[in-house]
């Protein structure tokens, strides 16, 4: 009697359901942030949107990156942001009125970014369908059959280390969604690409140096901003315009 809805539910891929749920939360709160006028609420919506983004990253199996997103963006940056907003937002500045010019500029920048991202997103083939696990399983089966054929052709009973190394990450991906991702990111930073062993060129140096340069650059920018903010305030007091 009640078979039809249950049958439909049996066809549901729960991974996809959660993906859509979290993705809609991320997009919806991002939109709410843009539409909202109140500065504090904007910060709040931004936090929820970023947290939902980290949920998306968790769903892809990249737990380390997801936790990073939570820690850095949601836990750190946005707390600082809210602090700043709370300290500076007085009654006059609490609601923001957007001018027409700002709207046009924002639409141009945001629209072009959206167009670019949409194009890229739909050019990745596996994103068009939601059967990620089915594809993964098909990949494993194909690899298995290939190995069996190779073994039969060479008339041996054991896998070569190369075949084993090929099959093992696939199985891990099916079971845990890439459990070794953390160490892969770390190795990638220092220049060892664990995911692409064929990329064994001596000129490849990894991402550690650019990462450090970006960090130092950000620090310099922060120090400069603090310096500028300080000197602005000390000028009128040096001119003797009052001691506020």
């Amino acid at each position, binding site marked *: 009697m009640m078979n039809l809805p249950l049958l439909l539910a049996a066809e549901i891929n729960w991974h996809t359901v959660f993906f859509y749920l979290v993705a809609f939360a991320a997009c919806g709160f991002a939109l709410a942030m843009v539409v909202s006028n*109140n500065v504090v609420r904007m910060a709040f919506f931004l936090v929820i949107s970023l947290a939902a983004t980290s949920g998306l990253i968790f769903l892809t199996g990249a*737990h380390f990156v997801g936790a990073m997103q*939570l820690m850095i963006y*949601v836990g750190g940056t946005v707390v600082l942001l809210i602090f700043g907003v709370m300290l500076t937002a007085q009654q006059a500045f609490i609601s923001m009125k957007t001018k027409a010019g700002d709207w046009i500029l924002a639409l141009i920048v945001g629209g072009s970014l959206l167009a670019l991202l949409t194009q890229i997103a739909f050019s990745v083939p596996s994103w068009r369908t939601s059967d990620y696990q089915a594809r993964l399983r098909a990949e494993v089966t194909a690899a298995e059959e290939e190995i069996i054929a190779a073994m039969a052709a060479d*008339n*041996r009973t054991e896998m070569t280390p190369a075949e084993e190394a090929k*099959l093992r990450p696939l199985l891990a991906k099916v*079971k845990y969604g890439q459990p070794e991702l953390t160490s892969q990111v770390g190795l990638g930073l220092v220049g060892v690409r664990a995911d692409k062993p064929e990329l064994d060129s001596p000129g490849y140096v990894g991402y550690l140096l650019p990462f450090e340069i970006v960090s130092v650059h950000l620090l310099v920018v922060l120090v400069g901003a603090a310096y500028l903010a300080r000197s602005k305030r000390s000028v009128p007091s040096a001119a003797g315009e009052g001691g506020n």
Partner: protein
Amino acid sequence: MADYFSTWFPEGWDWLGWLIAALIQAVLLLHVIAVGAVFFIWLERKVAGRIQDRLGPTRTGGKFGWLQTLADGIKLLSKEDLMPKDADPLLFKLAPYISLTSSFAAFMALPFASDWVGVRLNIGLFFIVAVLGLEVFGVILAGYGSGSKWSLFGGMRQAAQVVSYEVPLGICVVVPVMIAGTMDLVTIGDQQSGLFSNWLFFHDPFCMILFWVYFTCGIASVNRAPFDLAEAESELVAGFLTEYSGIRWSLFFMAEYGSMFLVSGLAAILFFGGWNGPIPIFFWVPEDNFTLETLANLVGLANFILKAVIGVLVMMWVRWTLPRLRIDQVITMCLKYCVPIAAFCFLGSLMWTALHIPFLNDLAPMQARADIREGWVQDIDDEMQRLEKRFALQAYELNSAVEGGPQQEAQTSLENDSADRVALSSTHETEESR
């Protein structure tokens, strides 16, 4: 658990088993917070009474006043739900839920016994620390959304405190990770099995100091006395909670008691062996014995909860003993004492590990620890072996089919092979339902 429940249902319906498993886990976790809060609130009154030479609850509910929390709950539920005129209604109403949700979400990755964990993440510790940091967010919103200056001051004080205490807390948490070589909490706990001298507290003298720094920072990060400046009742009335009443107020307190349990449980896993008792009575449990393993896990669960409750008890003891610190003392404590001590102990522990100096815990050699650490990929290894066997048989079969005359051996291997195939496809099915 999901694998077990999915065997109840016919083919294609095993998602129901997955759903049941997920619901059971979620409800169990919720009860850790809810029932825990009921017990801890009663305990808090009792401890306060004993320490300050009073009786504590005696009248409500006969012996020991055990119905006290229930009476509190009914009182809180029947209170009027007030909201100040100047409050931001959305933020005011959402703030308690954010606090509670972040506390609850952190429980998701907290193991209660070996393999009894909601979601086993290989970065479980990092996840918990990241999610615990979100709790302050609810407090800031509560402070701001109330539209009251007492609440605002309370929220800002707490945010300053929690953000600054996250630094020494992070340093303290790194040391067990470094010794264990993993951030997977299940593995960190399993590595400390054996006699109690295997607990990381006894790993080296620096770890012994480090535990106390961790516990201090833990108390500060869950905003308990003596670090409860944010709700200082003499100066700020009740801090960020000033304007809250009834059920919203109690949600904040459920979150606080949940976080207390979480921080103590984390301390138990990181420094006191987690679910491993002082003597390894279940060390000789045979593999594949479901009943005995469950019994071992139940004893482990009791161990873990006992350790965590002792931690919570110490927090209460501290609260009713020490006077509240001033804000400058709080920051001095963090930056001048906790951070340098933690950094020094971090270096010391690092040298101790690098030089392989033995201390009390020479029972588990490095190789055994490494073996336990690799447990994460153990079942991948098993699957690889099964696949290898199957591949060999299939390749043999292909060859014999080409050469003609399939043999008896190949026939039996075909049956084994089909059994393997069924087992493999069933694991695939459950994975899909994720």
